[in-house]
């Protein structure tokens, strides 16, 4: 019977149990959906739900739209044109990804408020006192600006990578047919890169739906903030579960729209010889305008917030620099290293099983493994918390010791939540590594008398090091910046750079949060740079 469901080796057995474990929180959310409706829920449905939906739709739509405009245009410019510092911008424009949007949001609030650098400068030098509403960024449009400027790199990154592989002949033949650069961009480049920028935009949209920090700080009601509020302020877990299900429905619609807009739009070359696009050298005003555009985006998304944080750090370091900060840094690094390692191990086990045992069961493993990234943090937090509380109840029942919260008060709960949320990132890296090396080496080793495990360690692993390394770095960056899961599921008194920075900012102690934010950004930049280095080396 076990053989029939694919249990033919250790890898498939472990994979099966991992997949069951990953599914558990979602199962508990679904079960919870059928609990009796409370008065709180009736109130939410009648008065608040409309706002949550409206705000979420507006945020998702406009952030998506502006991210496409900025991400695709910049990706095309750095690929097709050689302008001032264009080589630097190829990786420099990814840097805003190192700034978590919630840090960006309070940095911009600090920059623009009455005592901020801009208004102080205008008052002191030009005696200008302007209407405060001009500088109010804590609104829906302000949140759209924040999300766009810090998340557009997802669109840029994927579209840039796609355009790098495109053939020069497409552009050359268009030129010989009398098309202008603008016409080539809209009629050739935009249609062929649709799959790429839709994928990038979907990531942006999922990040917006996942976010808690920006909307909480700006006081905007969305699904994420309402799940937190219903759970912690109103103490109504069942209504939080219902909101989670609604949010998941929203996510499913987004994923369906992605599939719809990508459907049937995968083009491939009829010829295998592809001459890559050669960047055209720009001079004069065209050169400068391209530079100014790229530099402005980079400044808004990275240079300005970082300079502001450095300034605040300088004036506040005496108050904040103490042993606690070292502990916070160590917590952040520790949890991200351990989390990334566990995620990579799980990803390797599942991906190797999927590769070796091709059947209906393993096909679904792959789908389940990547599911978590589309589930917003608040929803995962609800599911994981219920799952761990149930397990604690079970342990209490067995041990006979009441009030013992062994698992739900431990770091394991947080790491498990990271596993669900970020397994997709690790899995995609591992899968692409396996795809790159193919199955011939594995099969050769098997015919030479080595089992799956020995083959993995002696043949697959050494050849997949770059893919595993990029997966590890990508997951580390995400865990380092992660906020909603960490805020809800961390053990008592356990702080990371992200939670501490957010708490300071939320308590109107923006200057104090600056050093923590800077350290977080600094570590992220190192990781992002290492990632681009590994990819470059790999090529």
């Amino acid at each position: 019977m076990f053989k029939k469901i694919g249990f033919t080796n250790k890898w498939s057995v472990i994979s099966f149990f991992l997949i069951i474990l990953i599914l558990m929180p979602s199962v508990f959310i679904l079960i919870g959906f059928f609990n009796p409706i409370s008065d709180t829920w009736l109130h939410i449905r009648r008065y608040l739900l409309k706002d949550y939906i409206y705000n979420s739709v507006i945020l998702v739509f406009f952030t998506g739209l502006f991210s496409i405009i900025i991400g695709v245009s910049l990706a095309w410019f750095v690929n097709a044109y050689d302008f001032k510092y264009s080589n630097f911008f190829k990786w420099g424009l990814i840097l805003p990804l190192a700034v978590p949007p919630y840090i960006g949001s309070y940095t911009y609030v600090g920059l623009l408020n009455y005592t901020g650098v801009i208004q102080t400068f205008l008052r002191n030098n030009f005696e200008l006192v302007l209407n405060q509403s001009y500088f109010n960024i804590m609104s829906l449009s302000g949140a759209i600006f924040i999300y766009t400027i810090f998340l557009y790199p997802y669109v840029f990154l994927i579209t840039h990578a796609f355009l790098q592989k495109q053939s020069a002949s497409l552009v050359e033949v268009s030129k010989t047919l009398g098309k202008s650069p603008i016409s080539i961009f809209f009629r050739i480049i935009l249609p062929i890169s649709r799959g790429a920028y839709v994928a990038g935009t979907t990531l942006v949209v999922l990040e917006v739906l996942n976010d808690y920090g920006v909307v909480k700080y700006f006081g905007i009601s969305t699904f994420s903030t309402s799940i937190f509020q219903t759970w912690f302020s109103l103490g109504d877990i069942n209504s939080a579960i219902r909101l989670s299900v609604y949010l998941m429905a929203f996510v499913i619609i987004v994923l369906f729209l992605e599939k719809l807009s990508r459907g049937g739009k995968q083009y491939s070359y009829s010829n295998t010889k592809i001459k890559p696009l050669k960047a055209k050298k720009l001079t004069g005003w065209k050169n400068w305008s391209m530079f100014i555009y790229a530099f402005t985006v980079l400044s808004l998304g990275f240079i300005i917030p970082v300079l502001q944080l450095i300034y605040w750090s300088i004036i506040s370091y005496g108050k904040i620099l103490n042993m606690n900060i070292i502990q916070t840094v160590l917590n952040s690094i520790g949890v991200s290293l351990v989390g990334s390692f566990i995620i990579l191990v799980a990803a390797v086990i599942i991906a190797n099983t999927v590769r070796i045992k091709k059947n209906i069961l393993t096909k679904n493993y792959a789908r389940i493994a990547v599911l978590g990234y589309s589930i917003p943090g608040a929803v995962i937090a609800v599911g994981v918390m219920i799952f761990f509380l149930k397990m604690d109840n079970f342990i209490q029942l067995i041990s006979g010791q009441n009030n013992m919260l062994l698992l739900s008060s431990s770091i394991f709960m947080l790491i498990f939540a990271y596993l669900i949320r970020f397994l997709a990132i690790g899995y995609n890296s591992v899968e692409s590594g396996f795809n790159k090396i193919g199955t011939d080496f594995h099969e050769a080793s098997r015919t030479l008398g080595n089992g799956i495990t020995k083959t993995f360690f002696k043949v697959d692993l050494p050849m997949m090091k770059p893919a595993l390394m990029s997966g590890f770095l990508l997951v580390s960056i995400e865990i380092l910046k992660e906020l909603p899961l960490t805020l809800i599921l961390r053990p008592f008194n356990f702080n990371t750079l992200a939670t501490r920075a957010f708490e300071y900012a939320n308590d109107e102690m923006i200057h104090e949060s600056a050093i923590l934010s800077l350290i977080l950004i600094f570590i992220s930049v190192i990781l992002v740079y290492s990632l681009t280095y590994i990819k470059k080396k790999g090529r």
Partner: protein
Amino acid sequence: MFVNMTDIDFCYDKNNENILEDFELNIDKGQTLSILGESGSGKSTILRLLAGLERQKKGQIVIGNKIMNNENTFVSPENREVGMVFQDYALFPHMTVFENISFGISHLSKTKRKEKVMEILNLVDLVDHKSKYPHQLSGGQQQRTALARAIVTEPQILLLDEPFSNLDTNLKNNIRESLKEIINVIGITTIIVSHDKLDALKLADQLIVLKEGKIKQKGIPEQLISKPNTGYAESILA
């Protein structure tokens, strides 16, 4: 019969048609069999089934009196004692020639391992290249390394999947000769999959022509080439 495939049905995807249907194959010990056929005729599938890299839907595979695969038994590739040379050689890029060849005999003592690898390196004339990595070798040297790696474990049968497809014509002739010599020296039962009739003529004792998973003709290579029994066999053997 040393190798025996009986009543084999196989398809890669359950929804697709069978690649092999009621397929039968028998090979005597020490014989060299060549399988000739167009792409998609099922040639490589036969090798993959014998190596245990795929599992058939129905039927039985026996190698050297031991049942390798039927309804109740499945011997995994690592326990089949089958040596296989892949079409693209699949040499481990992070290992030297010596390391590649010794990979399958890591259970032996260091001295014994070295002794065996040197013996094989002599046989395939690669002693001077033992410290090189695969990318530093010519096509012919890569092929001989893959062959050495496959035979050093002293397998019961040797499977060669399009062994000459990555070589240019001049090199092919030389390599064919040396391959024939090596096979003769070790006297191993060998199956060669190819789409080139010259491979069969030069190397094989027996030849089968395969079309859509079915044997169209079987016999001694020279006889088959002089008397093809169908239009398909004629086109393949022309």
